[in-house]
């Protein structure tokens, strides 16, 4: 063991701008990914509650299947399989798609708990008032179900952020992709990978604290 590794400040300083560029890509992927996950997750949650078993049952299985298999394999699958069917999208979009679909299975659970938290009387009142299914969902149920689940969605935002580096393995130059590149270019890997880790800590610890505060604040409301 030799714990006297000489940290190369000059090298660290030199690769930092590339890593920050990568971090920006990582943040963008997280942003688009969570938006997709929030939309798709809501669709999953609503389909799963369908009274038609031919809809609710397959939805439940698809959610279970996607959620219990590795994101990395799903990512590779989309990246290598889609072009076979003539669908050509760039690596970044493929990555966002994989992140969005994978995390939609988690967000759908979050929505489900929110929807189940809406008192039964609200459904009954909507029926009594002869509101259409569409109006019941969009004007009565969802406006009550969604605000309470926002902090839980925030937790998945942070979780997703930490999985974006997988995109580096389908040629996206996110923060880890830049780190890998610096490592192979210079044969010095300690600085890039340490900086990547530090950048993650710098972003994700404050965001977790923020989400926790949001949770506390929303819990205090009646």
């Amino acid at each position, binding site marked *: 063991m030799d714990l006297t590794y000489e940290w190369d400040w000059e090298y660290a300083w030199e690769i930092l701008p590339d890593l920050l560029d990568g971090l920006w890509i990582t943040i963008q992927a997280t942003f688009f990914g969570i938006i997709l996950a929030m939309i798709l997750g809501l669709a999953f949650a609503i389909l799963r509650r369908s009274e038609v078993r031919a809809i609710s049952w397959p939805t439940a299985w698809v959610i279970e299947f996607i959620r219990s298999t590795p994101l990395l394999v799903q990512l590779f699958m989309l990246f290598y399989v889609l072009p076979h069917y003539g669908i050509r999208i760039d690596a970044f979009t493929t990555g966002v798609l994989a992140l969005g679909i994978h995390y939609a299975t988690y967000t759908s659970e979050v929505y489900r708990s929110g929807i189940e938290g809406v008192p039964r009387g609200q459904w009954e009142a909507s029926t009594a008032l002869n509101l259409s299914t569409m109006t019941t969902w969009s004007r009565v149920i969802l406006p009550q179900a969604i605000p309470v689940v926002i902090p839980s969605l925030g937790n998945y935002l942070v979780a997703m952020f930490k999985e974006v580096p997988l995109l580096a393995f389908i040629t996206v130059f996110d923060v880890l992709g830049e780190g890998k590149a610096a490592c192979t270019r210079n044969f010095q890997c300690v600085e890039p990978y340490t900086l990547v*880790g530090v950048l993650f800590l710098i972003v994700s610890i404050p965001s977790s604290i923020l989400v926790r505060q949001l949770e506390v604040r929303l819990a205090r409301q009646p």
Partner: protein
Amino acid sequence: MLEWNLWRALLDGTWITVQVTVLAALLGTILSILSGLAGLSSVRAVRWANQVYVDFFRGTSAIVQLFWIFFALPFFGISLSPLLAGVVTLGLNMGSYGSEVVRGAIRAVPRGQTEAAIALNVTSFDRMRYIIFPQAAVTMLPPYGNLLIELLKASALVSLITLSDLTFQVQILRVNGSASTTQLFTIALVLYFLLAMGITGLVRAAEGYLGRGLEIGRGARRS
């Protein structure tokens, strides 16, 4: 369908995936318990050190940790084999999440149990070992099962440090062009799904086993 030798390669990969998952789960479970108990310690320095561990591993990404341990650690003269690097990283990672599960479950055991144990003059070690922990274990199991499935999924990362797990084998076969890409990835996902269902089944069985004789087990209503 695929030829036998292709199945052979996929099953060999699955076996590596199982090994990595089981070994990392062992390490992760031990760390979860130690870290969960450390989080409840009355010594401030222990709680603080534990929080640093938990925040560090939860705050950074598993893949970044794996790359650091596999590619950066050798510069400090510590070279781990791909298997060891994978098991250590995934285990440390799982421990940081399991810590909260253990801590939460122990805190959920009614205070009266601790008070009764003190009144009966049970030592603090025996109190945890025979009274508090067995009751907390039942509450821990469902979230623990989720952690095991997350671990199984994360085990695919070891393919990126050249360990020939299921994901790695699929990539090799894909590059060789031995089978259609769609087929390969579908089979891999199904195999992972079957493993996950196996984990779910085992955790259910454990819930039934640990819950026997306890009021808070499955089927019994919590008062």
